[in-house]
């Protein structure tokens, strides 16, 4: 929907309810269109994005776009991003201000990672849930998603986690999809289902995500352990052989020694 200048005022008024004013961004849409420079705003009531683009004539053209129509979004980094890395409150504020504008999930990822490092899985879950409320997709298709899943795994919330992992495995972001498969393997392994952990988790990482080295190395290690448990030594050796030859310097190869 293309609108002229006057309705912009209305759009801006509506924006009063959103957390953040327009942010500079670049978009790639599902229909293949690329929007190089625009000002982006999330409209929580309409649940759409308002995209304002300066036309060649100098006129600002706005339109509303459905989130599902956006394939890729690159929003400018928040000014206080670097300074906020070790400040949970600042990160939460960024997450709030950038709801549905990419940096909410980025902030969530940093926050959750930090909390997990301090063994505060429950707090990490709470923080991620807050962000999920404003951006449900962040829970299964964003940089925050793998940290959120790890936190859920640590707190034993396998019910909601399993659903998120199934969705995450279908993410177009291969790093997220790979992490989902790996975590799924971990969930099943903890349930003492080594066969399923391999089939639906670790072996998927090994064979379908060859360009995700960090995840693949971990999956090879865990697959070898699962095969040992199932008393399939030749399969276990295959996994260890690949791990040593392709990821010899990784911490997972170190664990073999």
């Amino acid at each position, binding site marked *: 929907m293309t609108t002229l200048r006057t309705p912009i005022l209305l759009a801006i008024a509506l924006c009063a309810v959103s957390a953040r004013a327009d942010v500079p961004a670049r978009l790639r849409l599902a229909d293949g269109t690329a929007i190089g420079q625009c000002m982006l705003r999330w409209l929580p009531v309409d649940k759409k994005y308002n995209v304002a683009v300066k036309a060649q004539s100098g006129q600002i053209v706005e339109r509303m776009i459905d989130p599902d129509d956006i394939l890729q979004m690159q929003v400018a980094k928040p000014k206080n991003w670097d300074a906020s890395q070790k400040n949970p409150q600042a990160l939460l504020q960024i997450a709030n201000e950038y709801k549905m504008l990419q940096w909410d999930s980025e902030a969530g990822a940093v926050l959750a990672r930090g909390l997990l490092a301090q063994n505060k899985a429950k707090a990490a879950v709470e923080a991620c849930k807050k962000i999920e409320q404003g951006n449900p997709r962040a829970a299964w298709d964003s940089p925050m998603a793998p940290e959120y899943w790890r936190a859920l795994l640590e707190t034993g919330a396998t019910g909601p986690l399993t659903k998120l992992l199934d969705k995450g495995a279908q993410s177009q972001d291969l790093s997220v999809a790979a992490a989902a498969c790996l975590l799924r393997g971990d969930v099943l392994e903890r349930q003492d289902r080594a066969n399923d952990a*391999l*089939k639906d988790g670790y*072996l*998927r990482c090994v064979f379908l995500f060859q360009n995700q080295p960090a995840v693949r190395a971990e999956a090879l290690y865990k697959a070898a352990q699962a095969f040992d448990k199932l008393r399939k030594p030749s*399969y276990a050796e295959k996994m260890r052989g690949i791990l*040593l030859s392709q990821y*010899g310097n990784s911490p997972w*190869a170190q664990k073999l*020694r």
Partner: protein
Amino acid sequence: MFHTPPQRFARGAAASAALCCALATAPAAAAPQDPRQDPALRVELQYIEALNAAGMPDFADLVLKDVQARWPEAKALLKTKALEQVLSLGRFDEAEKIIRAEKDQDAPETWAMKLLSADYRFSRGQYPEALGAYQAFFKKYAGKPPAALVSAYAQNYYKFVQMLLFLHREAEAAAAYEAMLKLPDLENETRRQAQFEWAQLLVKMAEDVKPDKNGKPTKERTDKLDKADKAVQALLWEQDLWFGRGVALLAHIRALRGKPEEARDIVNTYMEQLVSIDRQLQEQGEEQGVDLMGLSPIAESRYLVGTILADEADSMFDKSKGGLSAADEEKAVGIYDEALTELVNVYVQYPGFAWAVDAMDRVEAIERRLDTLGYEVESNITPEQRAKVATKQFANAASLYHQNQFEKAIQSFESVLKNYPQVVPDSIQGLGLLVQSYVELAEGLDNAEDAQFRKLEAEVVASGMAERFAMSGRDGVVKAGDTLRALSAFFADHGMPDAARRAMDDFFRLYPTHPVAADALLAEAAKAYRGDPPDYAEAARLYTVLAENYTSSQRSVDALRYLGDCYAKLGDSAAEITARSNYVARLEKDDKPSSALLHARYSLTRAHKNAALDRLRAATSAWDDIRRGVAPAPATPTPAEDGAPADQDSKEAAPEEGKSPADAALEELVAANRAVAECTESYVELIKTLAGKDRAMFESNAKEKQANNNLLLASLFDAASCYSSLNQPTAQLPLFKKRAIQMYETVVKLFPKNDNMPQVYLQLGTLYSTLPGEGAEAEANAKKATEWFDALSKDYPDSEQARNALYRQGKALLDLGYRTQGLAKFKEMISSPSGKYTAQQLANAADEIFAAKDYALAEQGYAAALSRAEPEETSLRARIAFGRARILVAQEKLPEARAALEAFVKDNPRSASVIEANELICEVCLKAATAEKDRAARTDLFKGAIAAVQALRPYKTAPRDAVDLQLRIGSIMEAQAAAETEMGDKATADDLLRKAAGHYQTLVLSADLSDMSLRQGQEKIFARAVRTLAATKVYNDGTPVWEDVKDLCERYLEYFPQGPSATEVRKTLGEANSNLAVGG
């Protein structure tokens, strides 16, 4: 000259599978929602393929089942996949069920499934079943397949022929080719190929037909060649690849008919067309990016001409008996020259040609012959050209392997490797595939011996490859190492675990410079160490290989550490100490020390400590045995080197010469104590480092700091344990205890929250309570002891140590002479509610109470212990019974005591207390006997005493002990005689005295006076013999004893001139002489 173009024979069953897919999915393509368009399903199918390719068909099968459940609409698409999955797992019965479930067994799709199954069966060696399926298929359609199956029919016929060829059933294959060529709608390309191959097969069959007895070709051969000739000529109407190959084959046929000139003429006649075809192949190859020159008819023709020429020249030399004339030799050499030109060009220009290697072999044979004739042959072949040939030939052989033509692959590899044994990486890869070919072939053989031989060949080649390429440069080492590892996995997958093990051992032993060797070896060793069950011996072996052969790798240092752990688990302390010493020495060479060095030093010290404590335990036990036995300690015991006081329990004088068992035991005890003391010094050094300012050198992060803290705690514990264990020199025991106390108190101060605090408190309480001292010092120690025990009960009431605290307090108080207080503690224990203390603990308490001589309370303790002992606690029950018997002895309830002791000995013959029990029986009987008024009862008691002493014989086997026992028996006899005298029965007393004298005389007669260790006992025997014999005065028959008394006295004085009884014996001798003088 027969080979199969690889591109037409599909490996496994890909063609059938594709056919099945085509048939199965054709209807589905029209469906509105085509599942093949679903990206998620595509991913799943990709996953299945990947799992199959990785050799995990069982997991592929699991995924397929999930996919079938999730996409039921894709059933048709997945049917073939499902069937293929089942077949790839060898589940043929299941596959048959799937096929039989098809409604229409004659539908094209069903036949496609049947043939797919046949292909898998063929690949698994089920040849009759596979061929049967194909034959049924051909019979069904009898050369007239429906339109949908026309091309598939021809493809399957071709495959059928290849199967027959594989099985060397050439006649059937030829017949099948003929039948195939009669198919009406056969594509031209297929027809021409089949026609050529049929002709080629006929030629081969003709070559195999032996000539008749006159050496002439048989009709069978001629007929075959005629047929082939005709078939080939039909190919020459159209110019294509088969035209070119047909020309070469036709020339070959003419050569076989004995017309070599005709053969060369044919080649020359068609050379222009052959060159054109050659050019086309080159262009096509360049366009497609593949090398098609191996199919060039020029190569075949030139090879044919070259071999015809070489054969001609060979024949000239072979037929001439006395050598050729100069002219003929020149002619023959000229022919060789022409042959060389042809053959060299074959393998240089067409390195991928199937007979390029044979061409090379022929060239070498010609060169050798020319060399013997004195001709020099110039070779312009560059090493690069030779290498190119090698690569092509290896690729050809590999393709045979991948087509499952294992026998041909073996021949091909063996031929190529003969010429190219050490080309990196081709020869290595070739050797690897050769090994696999042997094994695959073996698995298809019916004859077990043949199969075993092939497997042996495989192992030999693998091992040979390992050695040959171990020093072949970096690339060779990497390639060969990788191949060895792959072969190990291959052997394991094919049920050859020993071969798999050997391949990995060769890899580890011969390829230490391989990039992953050290890591892989470490991982392998770790697997053995942590296995279920663990195999420490194997882990030690692997770590040793790593430590000794990989000295340039950091892993060798890690191996030294783990090697020590392995030997610790194996209980081999000497090897553990060696390994740990090596590790410490290695770490000490590092520029920057770390906590690892301190840990290594601790582990080494601990290993020494464990060995030293074991030694001390054994030495202490041996020493205790000596002391408990009758064996005398040295009369002037040698003080220990550090000035320890002499042993205070010795009762007899030292032997005159030699080392007695007691001396040896004491020496060992001292040495063992010294070894433990050395360990304490090492621990103290370690503690100084860990508690001092130098510690910072050994830690660079929080993890290392924590590790060092743990080491400090462990060192303090171990040092305290060592100090507590020392038991020599006895004068320094208080000092040792104080040092132990110091260590434990340091633990309390530095590590107040450590898990072993109850043990620390208990040790402190015990140590303080057993510190000797007088007056105020003793009181202070007792107070400290009580404080620690109280703290134990208060802070750790549920700990095992707290439960033992009361016992330890009681004992400590008794040891210090606080009898009333000590007994009160034990009474508290005995009176406590059932379950608080175990039977063992109550028995311990009862023992201490007995030692304190409160026999009534001790009896209560034993009764309480007995009531809580389980029926299967037999040794504890025996101990309680013995304790109760001892109470009776102490209470001088002699008859009851004797009965209880004898019952104990009878019921517990293996008990360690049997010796003591018999001693007590002897003591009790003697005591009772001397007071017994009734003679029969008295006699029985003395008999009982003697029996008890005799019962000690099995336990006191040393010669000295045996002498001692005899002396004791003699003493009992004398005591019995004295008792009878006391009771007024002189006659019996005299009789008994004579018996005693006789006993001693028997001992005198059997005495071994050469054994100096027995001198002391023998001196007593002689002295007693003299005394008792002199006391009897006359023998039973009234004969005087003085002659024998004199003899005995003289002998005594001869052997023991300075003996303790010498004076008395001289006196008796005088008496004997006097009596003899008066005729006595």
